[in-house]
C-alpha cells in the first residue's frame, strides 16, 4: 500500500473544512470519543447536524474565529491507500501557510463555491499550485446542492477554469461536482447528479496514479552525516548517510561529489543490516565509495554523467514569508537540503499580483509576496531547475538576525 499526501485550497466559506470533515466522517475515520467531543460542542449547522468543520480546527484561536490559520495534518486510510491531508488556510494573509502545506503534497484539491464560480481566490490558489509544480489537480465544485445540482452551472464553471488551467500550464485537472455538507460525490456517489459519470472524490484519490516519474539519471544524494564508528574492528569504516532525493544509485555507479568535483565509484550500499544493489528516490541510505575522498555534510553525491547546475548566481521564484520585508542590503542564509551558505538578493526581477497574475516591477517585497529574484550565493550550489527536479530545485532563506525561515525559493534558471 502506498501513501498519498494532498492538500486542500479553499476557504472556510467554500466549505473546505466541511469537505475534509466529510471525507473523514464518511470513511469512518472519526473515533467514538472524538465524535462525542464533537457532539458536545455548541457549534452546529443550521439544521442541527454536527458541524464537521470543527474536526480540523486545532487551535483555540481558530475555533474562536471560525477560520483556519495554520496547516493541520489529518490521517486516514481506506483498503486501497493511505492518505495525509494538509488542511491549509485559504485567506490571502496565510498564503505562506498554504505554501508550507503544498510543498510536500502530490495532489491539490481546489475548492470552488458553485454559486460563485471562478473568483479571485481561485486564481490565487491555482497560481500557487502551478508555482509549486503540484502534479495532480482536482477542482471540487462544492455546494452543488445550493445550485439545484445543475449540470449547466457545472459546465460553465469548468469551461472557465480550463482557460485558467491552460494559462497556468496545469498538467492534469479533474473536475468533480460535490456537496460536502450533504455528502454528494465525496465518498459516496451522488444520487442527485445522474448527469455526472465520473468518480467520487474519494474514489479518484484512491485510484489516481501518483507514482514518481523519476529519471534514473537524476541521481542525487545530499550527505547529511558521515558514519564513522572509529572502533578497532571498524577502523576504516566511512559511510555517507543521506536520503536519495531523486533518481537511483547502483553499486559500481560512477559518482561525482559536489562542489569539490572529485569522483569515485559506489562500492557498497547499506540500509542498516541490508546490502541492496540499488536504491531509489525517497530511501534513506548509507553509501560507501571505493576511493578516499574528502566528503562532509552539505556535499552532494550525483550521477557522474548527469551533473546538476552549478552556480553562484541563480534566478528563482520566491514566496516571502516573514513580516520583515525582503532587504537587498543584508546577507541571508540559504539552506538547500543539507547545504547552508550565505546569500544576497541581487535583484527583484518582478512581483506577481497573485489575484490577477500580472507581473509588476517592484521595489519592495513583503509578507506573502511572490515573484522572481536573482540570488547570489557565497558558495556554488549544485542544484536542478525546479521544473526538472523539484527535490533538488528548492531552498529556503533564513534571516540570521531572527533565525526565522523568511522565504521559499524555487530555482528557475542560472543567471548570467
Amino acid at each position, binding site marked *: 500500500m502506498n501513501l498519498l499526501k494532498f492538500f486542500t485550497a479553499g476557504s472556510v466559506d467554500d466549505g473546505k473544512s466541511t469537505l475534509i470533515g466529510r471525507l473523514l466522517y464518511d470513511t469512518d475515520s472519526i473515533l467514538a470519543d472524538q465524535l462525542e467531543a464533537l457532539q458536545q460542542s455548541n457549534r452546529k449547522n443550521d439544521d442541527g447536524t454536527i458541524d464537521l468543520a470543527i474536526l480540523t480546527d486545532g487551535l483555540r484561536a481558530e475555533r474562536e474565529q471560525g477560520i483556519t490559520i495554520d496547516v493541520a495534518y489529518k490521517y486516514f486510510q481506506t483498503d486501497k491507500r493511505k492518505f495525509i491531508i494538509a488542511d491549509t488556510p485559504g485567506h490571502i494573509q496565510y498564503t505562506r501557510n498554504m505554501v508550507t502545506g503544498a510543498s510536500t503534497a502530490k495532489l491539490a484539491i481546489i475548492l470552488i463555491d458553485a454559486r460563485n464560480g471562478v473568483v479571485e481566490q481561485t486564481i490565487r490558489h491555482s497560481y500557487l499550485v502551478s508555482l509549486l509544480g503540484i502534479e495532480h489537480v482536482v477542482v471540487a465544485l462544492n455546494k452543488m446542492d445550493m445550485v439545484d445540482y445543475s449540470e449547466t452551472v457545472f459546465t460553465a464553471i469548468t469551461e472557465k477554469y480550463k482557460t485558467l488551467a491552460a494559462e497556468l500550464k496545469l498538467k492534469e485537472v479533474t473536475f468533480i461536482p460535490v456537496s460536502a455538507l450533504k455528502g454528494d460525490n465525496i465518498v459516496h456517489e451522488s444520487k442527485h447528479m445522474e448527469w455526472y459519470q465520473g468518480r467520487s472524490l474519494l474514489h479518484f484519490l484512491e485510484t489516481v496514479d501518483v507514482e514518481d516519474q*523519476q529519471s534514473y539519471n537524476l541521481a542525487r544524494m545530499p550527505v547529511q552525516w558521515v558514519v564513522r564508528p572509529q572502533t578497532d574492528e571498524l577502523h576504516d569504516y566511512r559511510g555517507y548517510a543521506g536520503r536519495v532525493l531523486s533518481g537511483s544509485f547502483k553499486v559500481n555507479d560512477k559518482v561525482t561529489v559536489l562542489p569539490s568535483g572529485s569522483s569515485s565509484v559506489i562500492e557498497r550500499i547499506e540500509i542498516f543490516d541490508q546490502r541492496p544493489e540499488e536504491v531509489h528516490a525517497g530511501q534513506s541510505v548509507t553509501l560507501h565509495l571505493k576511493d578516499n575522498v574528502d566528503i562532509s555534510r552539505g556535499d552532494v553525491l550525483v550521477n557522474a554523467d548527469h551533473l546538476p547546475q552549478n552556480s553562484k548566481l541563480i534566478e528563482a521564484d520566491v514566496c516571502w514569508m516573514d513580516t520583515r520585508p525582503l532587504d537587498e542590503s543584508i546577507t541571508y542564509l540559504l539552506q538547500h537540503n543539507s547545504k547552508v551558505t550565505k546569500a544576497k538578493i541581487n535583484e527583484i526581477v518582478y512581483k506577481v499580483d497573485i489575484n490577477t497574475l500580472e507581473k509588476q516591477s517592484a521595489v519592495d517585497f513583503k509578507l506573502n509576496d511572490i515573484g522572481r529574484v536573482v540570488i547570489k550565493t557565497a558558495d556554488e550550489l549544485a542544484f536542478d531547475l525546479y521544473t526538472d527536479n523539484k527535490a533538488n530545485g528548492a531552498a529556503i532563506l533564513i534571516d540570521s538576525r531572527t533565525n526565522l525561515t523568511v522565504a521559499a525559493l524555487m530555482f528557475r534558471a542560472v543567471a548570467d
Partner: protein
Amino acid sequence: MSKYNLDYLDELEAEAIHILREVAGQFEKPALLFSGGKDSITLVRLAEKAFRPGKFPFPLVHIDTGHNFEETIAYRDKMVERLGEKLIVGHVQESIDQGKVVEQTGKNASRNALQTVTLLDTIAKHGFDACIGGARRDEEKARAKERIFSVRDEFGQWDPKRQRPELWNIYNGKIHKGENVRVFPISNWTELDVWNYVKRENIELPSIYFAHYRDCITRNGQLMAASPFLNMDEEDIVENKKVRFRTVGDMSCTAAVESEADEIGDIIAEISASKISERGARMDDKVSEAAMEDRKKGGYF
C-alpha cells in the same frame, strides 16, 4: 524513465531517518526523550537505522515521574544495556524535593503535569539544544498543527501563532542561545503505523502493552491500575481484570483497556476495529478542548 514507489512504511521510515540525521547534523547537543512507550521505542529503532554501526550522536533522556510501571523501567534498563548508549534520568521527585513543584492532592492527583518542570530543568542542566520526541500528529488536534522542528523559547513554550514555515523536506534548526527545538520524526505516523512497524521490525515492547491480569479500579469511566500512586478510598472497588495499555505514561493518568490481545497481530486487529482514540485513555487530555495546546504552550513535549 522508470517508475518507482515506496511502500508506506518504508516511506515513513525513510522520512524519520532523514529527520534524525538532520538533528545530528544541525545541533551541538541533541537528546532523545525516551519514555519507555512504543513511540519512543520506535524512535530508538529508527536511530539504530540512522547511525549504526556508529554510536548515537545523542544520549537517551528519561523523565522519571517516580510513578512508573515497573515493567517500563526494567525494559528501559535492559534496552540501554543492549544498545550501549548513554542514559540520563531526570527525576520528578527531585523537583518536588527542591520545592520547584508541588505534588497534586485529591483523588485525581497525577505527576504528569509536574514532569514539564523536570524536563525543562534537565534540558537546562545539560544544555540540550534539540530534544527528539515520539509525538505524532494523529494523537491530538494541537499536535496536528505542530511542525516537525518545533522551536521552543527559553521557557520551553510553544507559540502556535509564530511557527516557522516548514517547506519541502528542508528543516531550519537555527536557534538563539537558550532556545531549543523539539523534533518529532514520527509526526506523520499513526498509531496503527507504529504497531505495524513494531511487528515488521520484530521490536520487543514492555509487557504491559499486552493483555495481562491486573488489579484495577474504575475512575471517571476509565480503568486505572490499582497502585500505591493512586489515591484510593473506600468507594473504589478493586477488580482483577484482563487488560492492556495503549500508551505508557505516569501510572496515575494512564488508563487500561480490557483486552484479550496478548500478541501483536491481535493488538493490530483490535486497534483497527477500535472506536476509541489512543489518547481517549489519557486523563490529562480530558480536561478541556484545548488541554494539549495549553500544556504545549507551557513547555510540554
